[in-house]
């Protein structure tokens, strides 16, 4: 008999709502204008570790936002194009990521009690209950 263990993290709601999906994790900050193609839902910055990777329907786990003030408009456009992530989990609060999360209208959490970049790996199954500030992680089968 196997028992699937869940890891539970607690943090602060940025935007409310509940979503689940597969994690996409990066320790790097995520670019906005000039480093992302919102219509395709893909990071394009030449030196980024997620270059060419799609964030569509993922639970995006990342350090924070960087670059241009066009950050929110890019991810807002991604929402309209249907390529936005399902939820955001991030460490560093900035005006870019806050406004981006608001206009993407996805559940978002920050200030977690453990570093999500240490706990969550790409491919893990993650549930975000932003209203309660709870993230549940089921590790991907090895």
């Amino acid at each position, binding site marked *: 008999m196997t028992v699937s263990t869940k890891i539970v993290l607690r943090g602060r709601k940025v935007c409310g709502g509940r979503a689940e999906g597969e994690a996409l994790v990066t320790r790097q900050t995520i670019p906005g204008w*000039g480093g992302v193609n919102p219509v395709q839902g893909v990071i394009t910055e030449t030196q980024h570790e997620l270059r060419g990777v799609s964030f569509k329907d993922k639970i995006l786990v990342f350090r924070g936002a*960087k*670059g241009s*003030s066009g950050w929110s408009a890019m991810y*807002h*456009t991604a929402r309209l*194009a249907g390529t936005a992530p399902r939820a955001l989990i991030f460490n560093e609060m900035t005006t*870019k990521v*806050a406004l981006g999360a*608001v206009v993407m209208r996805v559940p978002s959490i920050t200030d977690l009690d453990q570093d999500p970049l240490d706990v969550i790996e790409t491919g893990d199954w993650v549930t975000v209950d932003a209203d309660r500030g709870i993230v549940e992680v089921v590790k991907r089968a090895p």
Partner: protein
Amino acid sequence: MNLTRQEQEMLDGRQGKATQKAMELLVRYAEALGAERFVDTRNVAGVPGSANPFLQNYYKDKGADGLDAIFSHFDLDSDELIEVPPALVPTFHLQGGADPSAWQTIGVKVEVFRNYQEREAFAASHDVGILKTCTPYLAGNVPARGEHLAWMESSAVIYANSVLGARTNTEGRESTSAAMLTGKIPDWGLHQTEYRYGTHRIDVDVNVDSVMDWGMLGYYVGDVVQERIPVVVGKYSQSEIVRLKHFGAAASSSGGVEMYHIVGVTPEADSLEMAFGPKKPLETFRYGKDEQRRVYDRLNANGSDPDVDFVMLGCPHAAIDQLREAARLLDGKKVSANCALWIFTSRAVKSQAQQEGLLSRLASAGAVLLTDTCSAFAQALPPGTKVAALDSAKQVHYLPAILGIQAWFGTTSDCITAAITGRWTGERP
């Protein structure tokens, strides 16, 4: 959130539907940040109501192609269509669209240009000042020290905070448009004194003189501090507007720097103690010859072919002094038949250049002066461009990545020489 009576009235819809929708967005944004209150602003710089072809078509397909649709649904993120009132507080339009006198030069199609004109007329008719530049501070909007702003454009935000001592976070499209209708922005981050002190110390131990030198220093600083606040310590022969403009633009591109201090130069850094306030530097970095050379090599990593077919100056938009310098370097010479030279600036500075005769001096040498946008922003190059030469660390950070071309980085003089000869001869410092 603690709302004042006026803010609560705005949220309750007692000041109209548009103000209510703007306030709803600002409250969602402030709560996301964890802000407790708003601060009043009477200086907003954004891109209200502008639209690229994707947005234009998206809302048209949804049957929402009236003039107010994009502002309602995108700027204010409102599901409801509202009638957009004029700006409540002084608001300015930053870069965007295409030069109205030379849109064909940058390859804009006529229907797209007509759309830009329509969006510009929409903004102007809502009392938005049409600056069409990333350098509002060189085009008539120079905030005072301590003034609270709601500005977009990372290179303008860092200039306003650091050089002018005004207070703004890096705002976005939606928050600036909401501020335009309410005069409110979350009181968070750089609006508050305790978040304006330095966090990292940079000791400069190499000669920093030219615009290129300042760009390299900025690129280094942004890379090492990311979104924190650097305090730069060193000796400089010149630290005027143009150099600080290039320094800040670079630091906000390689990192997310929104504020810096240069001891003895910027207004909140008369001394090291003043720059750090009650804080101690988290880390100290030394910028010497080796660091400078590494930055130079990194900024030239996308250049290999010495045959240059495109030179772009004016990132951020050129100041009048930079146009004068370009005209001087070009006097009696011609841009090579194998090369194009585009210089981007604001409409205000172009108008001054025209009156000073600089425009005709530049034109007779074969240089093209353009306004409203830049190559990276408009994704516009002369047809067939393979190798560009640039004097801006910010532009060289973005342009090869966005358009897949080679690019050299050097001094303004290196770039003008390349435009005249069609060859890159810039040298590593």
